[in-house]
């Protein structure tokens, strides 16, 4: 058990004879948290809140200008011998009340001190603002009187009628969404296109304004005052915000929760309306705006606002639902408690949770929000850094200070000088450095399996194209595509009636020349010579046409697999001479041509790649072994197939001005991997694309991360 603050204090004389009381304007509300009664003091002027335990409140409430603090304290001690605050606690309580400007006292104020305090607070706020630069708040107006005047118009919507209307509209919208889901999804792909961003942002601003008014009206409806409205620079994007913290003073929990949810309620309603508009309109600006509104309202409110791990609406709602106020701070305290108690061995550490369940909630929340924050802020940072180089570096610096340096510094100060640790400092320092060393050691020295992937395309090592040597209509398929053929096997039968006619004509011509030759033998010897030549020509033509006719039966030039994906579509079609019918592919040897990016290049050459395997798209479950591979030294810029480039849906950036889509935007290295002979049941087809995974020698994580960070910087900023 922790040492309770002492019953007697040496500073008691300072307050003992004072006549103090709460300021008359202070409002007091009773609230219940996890079955415990608390009292919330609210200063309506500064909108500050102060939570008290009943025992402390009993003391504070008894303070009157006509009685001294000493008298009140004694009375409390008599009435509640065990719960009443001791002198030490009473002094602290009074000091806190004084700091929160809730205390009325008779003596003249020490003005210099008041100013000093004000200055200190301003500095603190400024620092907090700078550290929270991603969500900078700039207060502008006081909307309260506006809200009061317009509330009658809105009031009917906040109630049973509003609830029914909301349910009806949202229900219909959900049905619409279900019915049109594919269309919805298709349109989503174009949302982040540059020409849509402005619409998206405008929709966002309007929505967030409505969202905030939702909070404000709900809060006003239940009697809370809303005095601040302004602009929140969310990642440097201005959106409106309102301060509805007056709701914290509400006595009923459902009201607090409802005010917290008000923004999302409004947004979902708007999203529902937008859905209805979207489904009723055809292509056009209205359609597009409606779509954007719908998307922003649902996604942003569900992902951001309702997410309790970020400190938006969802957090406060969850905090109210769990009945754990200051959830985040207390979660941090809880985590600290665990480490103090079990890692540092502080037996006297005070458990901030009062019950087991609360402890579980706090722990889970603490860990989850910690991880989530790292991910979200890391992402935001990269996003911003990607857009604005200088700003990105600046922000990275600020964030590094706020999220790394400051907490680290605090940890150091805490370890070095926290009075709590006085007796356990050696252990605390040892445990902390030990854990840090362990983590760093693990990251730096424990090699982990390591690999990288590259896109590529499968090709047969040997293959010939099958062309039609003669023009003709595609007649019958003599061999089914996909089967193995031997050399000379007929594949396709073409038909060419014109060729037949030509052949008949040619044969007739030859017969005529032969007849004239016979005649000349008898009548005109000198004509023999030219006629002989004529016959030769006619014979050649016939032979030519005959071979052409034979070529109408397309045959395999070599053994292999007959691959002709489109030939069946050609049946009955006229193909000009030289058209490609398909391929004859050698099934024994396939090669995978992989495109390796520059950054990965050094690893290709520097380390001995131990193993690689290929996965083909559409057969991702199947790993295909690679017998050997060979890196083509020297960079290239022409892709082996357009299928790998952006234009054809691949993942390699290509130059936009290349109509073929094979000119890569950045030079790359090509790796040719010999596929294993046994295809292990996978259908190896020439031209299939896939990914190859190179297994690198095991390497620890930290060097890898540092390398990727440097590559990132190098690529993005050419540093």
């Amino acid at each position, binding site marked *: *058990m922790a*040492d*309770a603050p*002492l*019953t*007697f204090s*040496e*500073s*008691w*004389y*300072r*307050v003992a004879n*004072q006549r*103090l009381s709460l300021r008359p304007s202070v409002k007091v509300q009773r609230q219940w948290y996890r079955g415990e009664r608390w009292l919330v003091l609210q200063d309506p002027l500064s909108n500050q809140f102060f939570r008290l335990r009943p025992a402390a409140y009993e003391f504070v409430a008894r303070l009157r200008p006509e009685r001294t603090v000493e008298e009140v304290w004694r009375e409390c*001690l*008599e009435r509640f*011998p*065990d*719960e009443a605050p*001791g002198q030490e606690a009473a*002094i602290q309580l*009074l*000091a806190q009340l*004084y*700091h929160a400007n809730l*205390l009325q*006292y008779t*003596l*003249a*104020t*020490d003005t210099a*001190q008041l100013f000093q*305090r004000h200055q200190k607070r301003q500095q603190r706020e400024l620092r907090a603002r700078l550290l929270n630069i991603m969500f900078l708040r700039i207060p502008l107006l006081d909307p309260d009187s506006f809200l009061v005047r317009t509330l009658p118009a809105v009031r009917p919507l906040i109630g049973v009628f509003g609830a029914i209307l909301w349910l009806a509209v949202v229900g219909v919208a959900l049905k619409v969404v279900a019915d049109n889901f594919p269309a919805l999804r298709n349109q989503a792909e174009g949302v982040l296109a540059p020409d849509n961003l402005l619409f998206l942002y405008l929709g966002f601003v309007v929505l967030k304004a409505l969202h905030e008014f939702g909070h404000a009206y709900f809060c006003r409806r239940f009697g809370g005052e809303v005095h601040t409205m302004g602009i929140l620079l969310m990642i440097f994007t201005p959106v409106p915000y309102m301060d509805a913290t007056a709701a914290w003073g509400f006595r009923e929990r459902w009201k607090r929760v409802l005010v917290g949810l008000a923004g999302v309620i409004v947004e979902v309603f708007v999203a529902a309306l937008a859905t209805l508009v979207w489904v009723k309109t055809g292509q056009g600006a209205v359609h597009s705006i409606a779509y954007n509104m719908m998307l922003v309202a649902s996604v942003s409110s569900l992902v951001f606002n309702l997410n309790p791990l970020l400190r938006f609406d969802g957090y406060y709602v969850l905090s109210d639902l769990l009945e754990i106020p200051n959830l985040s701070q207390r979660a941090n305290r809880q985590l600290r408690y665990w480490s103090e108690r079990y890692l540092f061995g502080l037996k006297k550490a005070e458990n901030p949770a009062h019950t087991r369940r609360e402890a579980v909630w706090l722990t889970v929340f603490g860990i989850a929000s910690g991880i989530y924050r790292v991910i979200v802020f890391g992402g935001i940072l990269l996003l911003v850094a990607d857009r604005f180089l200088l700003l990105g570096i600046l922000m990275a610096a600020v964030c590094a200070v706020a999220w790394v340096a400051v907490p680290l510094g605090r940890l150091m*100060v805490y370890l070095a*000088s926290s*009075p709590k640790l006085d*007796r356990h400092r*050696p252990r605390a320092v040892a445990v902390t450095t030990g854990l840090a060393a362990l983590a760093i050691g693990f990251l730096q020295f424990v090699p982990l399996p390591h690999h990288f992937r590259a896109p590529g395309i499968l090709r047969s090592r040997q293959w010939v194209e099958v062309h039609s040597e003669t023009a003709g209509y595609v007649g019958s398929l003599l061999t089914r595509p996909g089967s193995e053929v031997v050399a000379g096997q007929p594949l396709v039968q073409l038909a060419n009636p014109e060729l037949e006619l030509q052949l008949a004509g040619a044969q007739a011509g030859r017969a005529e020349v032969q007849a004239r030759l016979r005649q000349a033998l008898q009548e005109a010897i000198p004509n023999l010579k030219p006629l002989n030549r004529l016959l030769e020509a006619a014979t050649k033509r016939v032979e030519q046409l005959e071979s052409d006719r034979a070529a109408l039966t397309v045959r395999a030039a070599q053994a292999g697999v007959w691959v002709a994906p489109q030939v069946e579509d050609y049946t009955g079609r006229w193909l000009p001479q030289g058209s490609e019918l398909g391929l004859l592919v050698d099934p024994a040897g396939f090669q995978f041509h992989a495109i390796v990016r520059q950054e990965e290049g050094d690893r290709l050459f520097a380390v001995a790649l131990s193993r690689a395997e290929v996965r083909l798209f559409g057969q991702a479950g199947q790993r295909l072994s690679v017998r050997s591979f060979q890196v083509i030294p020297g960079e290239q810029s022409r892709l082996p197939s357009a299928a790998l480039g952006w234009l054809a849906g691949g993942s390699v950036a290509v130059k936009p001005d290349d109509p073929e889509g094979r000119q890569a935007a950045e030079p790359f290295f090509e790796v040719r991997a010999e596929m294993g002979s046994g295809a292990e049941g996978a259908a190896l087809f020439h031209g299939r694309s896939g990914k190859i995974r190179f297994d690198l020698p095991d390497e620890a994580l930290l060097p890898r991360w540092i390398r990727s960070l440097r590559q990132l910087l190098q690529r993005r900023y050419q540093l």
Partner: protein
Amino acid sequence: MNTPTQDYRRTAFHQPERLLKGLDAALHGVGGAYRRRAGVLAGLRRQAEQVDALAREYQDLSNHHLQERLLECRAHFRRGGRASADQLVPALAAVREAADREVGLRPFVVQLMGALALHRGYLAEMATGEGKTLTAGLAGVLWAWTRRPCHIITVNDYLVQRDAEWLKPLYHFCGVRVGFVTGMMPPDERRKAYVCDLTYATSKEVTADFLRDGLRVGPLRQPTRRLVRHLLRPAAEGADGLVMRGLHSAIVDEADSVLIDEAVTPLIISTFRANDALREVARLAHELTQPLRPETDYWVNHRYREVELTPVGRAKLAELCAPLPGLWRGPSRRMELVKQALVAREFYQPGKQYIVADSKVVIVDEFTGRQMPQRTWRQGMHQAVEAKEGLPISDPTETVARISFQRYFRFYHRLAGMTGTAREAAAELWQIYRLPVVTLPTHRPCVRVQYPDRVYPSEEAKWEAVVAEIGRMHAEGRPVLVGTRSVMASETLAQQLTEAGLPYKLLNAVRHAEEALIVAVAGEPGRITIATNMAGRGTDIKLGVGVAARGGLHVIATERHESGRVDRQLFGRCARQGDPGSAQALVSVQDELLRRFLPRLVHGQVRRWVKAGAPGAQAAAEAALALAQRNAQRQAYKLRRSVLRTDDWIEESLSFAGSETG
């Protein structure tokens, strides 16, 4: 009739700067290191030599002319600014000449350097016996000439009176009025003393007067507020009845003891108030602790002087408390009260922390071994000890005003100090008081022989060795001064000496004047004097006839103190002013210093080595001692700093209750 300015100054004092933290503190520390740099000493010496060079010029002046010169200087100094800066060297030369004529002592160059250092606001580290009193007098004249209130703070009432009276002719000659304040003076006499240009007092008296003045004027201590009010309503009561005339400059003698060792000791003005409830509670708590046994019912943590109840003890306590009234039903309050009673039982021992006299608990200062009949422990603790001793339980004192020396001395506009030992605490003195330390050389080279410490495996072995050593020295006819850490230790030793048949004088909680007399003759041949570490501070031990030839005074420290400064002070009692002398510390591994301030593992290891007489064990023990002292110092500094921070916090947070200091 006071002028408004004079009236304003009645309660004016310097608002101290905030205590710095983090990088600010580090930067400030660099500034302090600069102020302590070696060049400062050279500068002081140069200036002192300039003063010395003027000696001839002043020696030939008649008394009348010298006095005229002095009054001229006074006029310059009162004007302040450049005029006084230019006049510094001739003024000091004139004061020096006056000292020679009026007191009969001619200040050495080293003393001039000391006076200049004080004038610049330094803490001058001067070896004991170098004439600090006169040095302070020289600087005091310079400061007193400005007519701003100047206090010279010394260790005890005896020295206050002695110094003031000794230097009175000098001050008188220089046109400076001097007064002194001692413990039993009525307010009127105090006022007269403070009205003087220069006032001698102990730190306790000035602080108490400051608090009492504060209580008298209340919120009107704020000079501006009082002045405005006085202008608006001339009839209203102003600064009447005040004793002091504001705080401006102070020269603190034995500054390390006042500013560091006793820094957090609060000075409390209190009244007694009947509180039957608390008396009853203390008695009950004592009764409840009777059945509780260490180890089974509670653990005792010697290192942190704490008691923790075991689950068994708690259960037992709950059972015992069941029939008791309200206050005892809840666990937290009764635990606090019972723990307090247990602490009284475990850590407060008669003879060490207190003695019982006239069926009253009288606190004994652990440092000096002196009785402190005025002092009480904090509320409840005193009663708990009384209950333990079975004495009638006294009413708790109720604090009316309270301030720590640390806070009080930060209120001086101009602070300077002197001590024999300050180097160890230079950083702290700078951070908290903005006092840079400068170490002055001795007038004659010091010929003290410092023998290396001897470490014994047990207390008994140590005492045996101490007695043997004393016997050896006694046989040689050399005087011996033995320093002990507590009254109990000195009594143990006295008993052993009696058994060994050696004659000795025991200095132990007697009046300062007698103390000083005993210490003064401690240098007679063959004399054995046992004293707690700080007893008779500020008094010279003059060597008897023929003692110097036998090697001078030998000092034995029977325990290392938590602070190396206190050790040095004890050793500094011998070999003063070029006399011969020797010093040695005989310690045991069971000493409290090692027990409390060494990590348990290290302590155990050192103990085993020393017990086994392993080679290098002495060196290891030496290192362990140094480490323990460092730990102790660091812990103490942290405590002092946190006390100051807490004070600041309270001052700020409770400003609705009126500022304590204006």
